[in-house]
């Protein structure tokens, strides 16, 4: 299999803050693991689905590249606010 590039520590925290900002990953939700899938994995999959990426639930290079593209600051999912 293609070795997935080691995602640096800071990339993971970057990804987590991205998902909080745009896909409504919250602290509370981030503590409750349901059916063995962590909220972080689920939100990653939501983001990959929204952007038409390969839906893996893991932070691969293409997903990280998409997160680093310049964008609008409004969330991609409805957040009651």
């Amino acid at each position, binding site marked *: 299999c293609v070795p997935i590039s080691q995602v640096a520590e800071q990339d993971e925290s970057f990804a987590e803050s991205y998902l909080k900002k745009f896909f409504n990953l919250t602290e509370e939700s981030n503590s409750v693991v349901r059916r063995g899938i962590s909220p972080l994995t689920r939100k990653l999959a939501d983001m990959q689905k929204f952007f038409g990426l390969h839906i893996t639930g893991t932070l691969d290079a293409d997903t990280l590249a998409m997160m680093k593209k*310049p964008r*609008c*600051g*409004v969330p991609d999912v409805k957040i009651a606010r």
Partner: protein
Amino acid sequence: FSTFGGDLKWDKKSLTYRIENYTPDMSAAEVDDSIARALQVWARVTPLRFSRIYSGTADIMISFNRRAHRDGYPFDGPDGTLAHAFAPAPGLGGDAHFDDDETFTFRSNSGYVLFMVAAHEFGHSLGLSHSDDPGALMYPVYSYRNPDTFTLHRDDINGIQSLYGPNPDVDPREPEPTAPTTPDACDSTMVLDAVATLRGEMLFFKDSFFWRSYPQSNTPQQTLITNFWPDAPVNIDAAYESQQLDRLLLFKGRRVWAFNAYDLAPGYPKSISSFGLPQSVKKVDAVLYDQASGKTLLFAGDSYYSYDEARKTMDQGFPKRVDETFTGLTTKVTAAFQYRGFSYVYSGPYMFEYSLRSGRLFRVLRNDYFLRC
């Protein structure tokens, strides 16, 4: 498209806007013009009308800010988040804030085109949320487009008209210029512009878009060509991966572009005559690189030429008729590529699978054989 829901929209058709401050990147006149044209994008397709005020509180307050700026949503410095805006509501609602740590431009792609960013943000100010259509203005990721030729995407028009209806001043008998739409991988009648491999992936080009298909993925990712290659042409004629040059080459009309990863290679675009094609060939319909022989086949009309990548010369004895080599292929070639030893030649929505060695036709397949929908 998507809206903020909860009926977050303006209950009036005349809205005011005020530009509270300016970015040092552009002249005030350029900022004024960019903002006015960005609002006009939405006025053109709805009953909404915008008027500028110079003091007091407008429905849409426009400002340039850095980092924390008293709305609870700090900006993040250069790149990343470019701007944000708030859904229709009194007070902060409708306001648009631009991150002044960005470089905004009037039309150059040396920075972020303010007109494009503002037109997107005003979509939020009017009640639209983000679209997952990569060709839509309301797609969250910025992509450069020439502001002089920009036309609102069908998806955006459908979205804003779901909130406010159409522009009553437009005579339905004089339809607007056709709004661009995003090609659909599920459209079995779609005729691809070009197909190429690139380092193990497959690229399918159509209009301003391409799909990337990776072997381990079951859904190809669609994106704007200029998102990856800002200097690339769109609506291309042909494409192929030169293993010799380790480059992707895109053909349009009499010219060819070569890209090293995302960058245009020095000296490109060149003329297609640099392949040794005669002046009579005005465009190439498809290009295929044959791994086994190191030859590049260039299809033009009902003929094809063979170019030796190593010697960089056109082979003798060409052009040949396509159906002389590719049994049964009597219709116009529209795209071609080689994958895992088989040569695939597209004609319209059909893909013919050949062995170049024997010239034998194995299967006639549809587009969706590789481009899964």
